[in-house]
């Protein structure tokens, strides 16, 4: 680790001001990506602004029939929340399989979303539900948020505040984990709304994406059989020592089918 300063702003406004003042400052919430990066000397921030405790980021409430979850709410809190389990149980289930208990007790939903790791679970839920991402400046639609590998629509100094998830009729997340890291090799979030179905895929490509052909098929017929023959093209999918693009493409269909099965059973 290189030396850095540590600040603990007492409001979102103060954090935003400090972030504006210093382009080398970094936000710290759960620290589960940032701290290992610092330990390996792969980042050299001037100051860490610890925002994990801010009340403005810690809310979890029902809103407009959906759920508003603060950016600094921890994975474990989502997994254990009666409110989440009652309204969108697929989110609680997704959160309950992130990392291990130590990770879930520190890592935050917002940190994971803002980091946009291609194998993270949360982006699948955000895009799958068609959530709204609320920052200290504006609202961003899920479909506009994830731009590429570790790349989001967040501007310099913009802070993710909370995420509003609409409540689907049925939803489920099926994940095929990397045997080493337990991140998603492929994770598929399927959400059925009254008028349409959304299917979001994480892990398979540099960024989360929607499987639109599957969405159309499932909107017509919400059964696993409806998508059994649909394959996302291999082109542009990730290929590494754990899974080739061809295998990932195959797994997207398998996981999507399983998510539909689970959603139907829910």
């Amino acid at each position, binding site marked *: 680790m290189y030396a850095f300063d540590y600040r603990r702003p007492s409001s979102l406004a103060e954090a935003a001001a400090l972030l504006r003042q210093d382009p080398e400052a970094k936000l710290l919430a759960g620290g589960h990506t940032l701290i290992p990066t610092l330990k*390996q000397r792969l980042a050299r921030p001037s100051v860490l602004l610890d925002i994990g405790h801010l009340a403005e980021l810690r809310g979890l409430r029902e809103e407009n029939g959906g759920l508003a979850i603060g950016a600094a709410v921890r994975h474990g809190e989502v997994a254990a929340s009666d409110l989440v389990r009652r309204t969108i149980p697929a989110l609680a289930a997704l959160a309950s399989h992130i990392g291990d208990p130590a990770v879930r007790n520190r890592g935050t939903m917002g940190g994971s979303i803002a980091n946009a790791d291609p194998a993270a679970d949360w982006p699948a839920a955000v895009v799958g539900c068609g959530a709204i991402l609320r920052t200290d400046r504006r609202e961003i639609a899920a479909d506009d948020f994830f731009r590429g590998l570790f790349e989001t629509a967040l501007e310099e100094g913009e802070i993710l505040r909370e995420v509003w998830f609409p409540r689907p009729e049925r939803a489920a997340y099926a994940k095929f984990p990397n*045997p*080493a890291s337990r991140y998603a090799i492929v994770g598929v979030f399927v959400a059925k709304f009254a008028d349409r179905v959304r299917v979001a895929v994480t892990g398979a490509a540099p960024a989360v994406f929607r499987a639109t052909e599957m969405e159309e098929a499932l909107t017509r017929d919400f059964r696993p059989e409806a998508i059994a023959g649909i394959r996302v093209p291999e082109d542009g999918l990730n290929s590494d020592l754990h*899974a080739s693009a061809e295998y990932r493409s195959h797994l997207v269909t*398998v996981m999507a089918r399983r998510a539909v099965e689970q959603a139907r059973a829910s």
Partner: protein
Amino acid sequence: MVAKGIGAAVPRKEDRRFLTGRGRYTDDIHLPGEVHAVFVRSPHAHARILRIDKGPALAVPGVLAVLTGEDVAADGLGHLVCGWLVKSKDGSPMRMGKHPLLAQGKVRYVGDRVACVVAETLAAARDGAEALVVEYEELPAVTSLAEAEKAPVAVHEEAPDNVVYDWELGDRAAVEEAFAKAHRVVAVDLVNNRLVPNAMEPRAAIGVWDPGTDGYTLYLTSQNPHVHRLVISAFVGIAPEHKLRVVAPDVGGGFGSKIFVYGEECVVLWASRKVGGRPVRWREERSEAFLADAHGRDHLTHAELALDAEGHFLALRVSTRANLGAYMSTFSSCIPTYLYATLLAGQYRTPAIYAEVKALYTNTTPVDAYRGAGRPEASFLVETLVEEAARVLGIDRAEIRRRNFIPKDAFPYQTPVALVYDTGDYATSLERALALADYAGFPARRAEAERRGRLRGIGISCYIEACGIAPSAVVGSLGAGVGLWESAEVRFTHTGKVQVLTGTHTHGQGHETTFSQLVAEALGVPFEDVEVIHGDTAGTPVGMGTYGSRSLAVGGEAILRACRKLIDKGRKIAAHLLEASEADIEFVDGAFRVKGTDRQKTIQEVAFTALVPHRYPPDLEPGFEASAYFDPPNFTFPAGTYVCEVEVDPDTGRVSIEKFVAVDDFGRVINPLVVEGQVHGGLVQGIGQALLEQAVYDPSGQLLTGSFMDYAMPRADDVPAFVVEFAPGTAAAANSMGVKGCGEAGAIGAPAAVINALTDAIGVRVEMPATPEKVWRALHGRRLAQAAE
């Protein structure tokens, strides 16, 4: 009979400190004035070092010294050595390249040590390491074992074709003859995947030079502190042996990786002198451990089994290439030879066996012993081949084994590959394992799985291993540079408590408990009154350390012999006190008694008399302690049967282990709780090898699996609840306890059981680790082939 004696499932006494965070590991030790070391490592797999500029590193505030290979040479220090000489078929000695403490002129793998920066703080040492300027000229690298011999790259000039040795064992002519007459020949090509040991505690060391005495102390993570002392003094030459104290305190796992003498620990010791005697401490990062701790396995093998029409094995022919990495580590030469090919008979009376092993250099991390060391490779080969033969000949897989087992009444049994098995009863273990696994009921379970869309398979593995590595004369004749006996000292204190000093070292095996039980039983003293002391060359007798499941079979026997010497002495003292003839004194339940009377003296009373000899035999020395050495006449041969049942998800290729039965013949079991724990750990590592673990290099020599993000360690949910049972057991002949050793069995026997089950499930064999994609591809390919038919 004492409570907590032999056979009692006593919870481990060491667990109190380990489970409450009170263990004292090397990195927990802090000494006044200590400074920190960080190593600069090669980013290239193969390169010439053109220039090192120490200036920018030395300019970093707090940096005290920058040490390089030139400094090592200038101080006249020697190289690291490989302590086992293996000769090629033509009688020529192995071709060993120099293994310097810090690179001299060239680097040969990613992670090779280039320089050591010593500074007041760890942060300053890191800053210094980052500031050091090293200019390299990159050279072509060879990282693939398959290509090592043909590559236009020599890792060392001593071995231009990268062949370290081309070794053979067995009767080639007899094997050829048997093959010519065979009814059927079954062949397999096998990969034994390269593994990273990943002990929970990374390596660490603190080196101290005392300018007052000119003595040195090295605290380090070692499985064998006396071996470290020997090599560092005799070959590296940092200090004469009597001026070097090596301390291995609590050590958090080794699995072989902490046997070896590495450069870092030596440099840290030497560096203390370079900074005027301030203690120099170092602890590797986890990512350094991936690069710098010796890896395990890494074989490519072609093997053929000749059979007659009834499925009897006629001959076995094996050709193996073994990767030794970029340098020869401390015992690397003997692993793919004397600890591998000598086990190729397995549990069977195959009359003729021939094996040839080519060991090769590559630009990768050195490879040496890892839990099982050679024996897992042999067992995997034999047991894969046996099941393949059963399938080809259409014989039940249990039945083909029954037909070929060395029968119970054939012991001692001379194998065609040098070893003499002392005792064994393989059929009993097999039948018991089959019963526990409900082998007969398997077809119904398979059918039920099929209805759920799952493919179910069952696999058997009948492993054998040679443990209790010793017979010094035998290993010496095979090229070992050391004797492999053990020693022990047993002392009574005035108050009747017992100190047991052993040359072995415990780092997860539970010696403190097991040895205490042994002594409690032998001397009739309470278990709680025994303290086991190990791990400090200044305080324990010389020993060769802990590896190869040898500590109880060799070290335990030395302890027992020391106890017997004490009893002999005690009898004399008791006879004097009881005014009886020595011949009339018997030792029963911790007391010396005049036979047929109730007149007795407890061993504590006798010990007190020996230490306060007011009324004492005039011709006897005072004191109540004894030491003993033990060099066994033979290895021990633990053996058993493992049965694994798996289910495969055909959509994803994911393999789940549904049931795992282990029946082991470990001879006599001192503490079943400890032994079961050892089996569990070994099984998990064996399952890890079969399904999860693999060190992967890219063609340029970068380790792609350099962290737990990519190197898949088994986790609790990757394994089932094990069914572990100990066979009635045949007592080992090589020690008076009849014990065999249990530390490695699981890792040796499990891989074949898992892979055989998987092959049974999907109808085709997948190389280890059988990752989901490999399994899916195997199934996918098979389905396409079937569709085409």
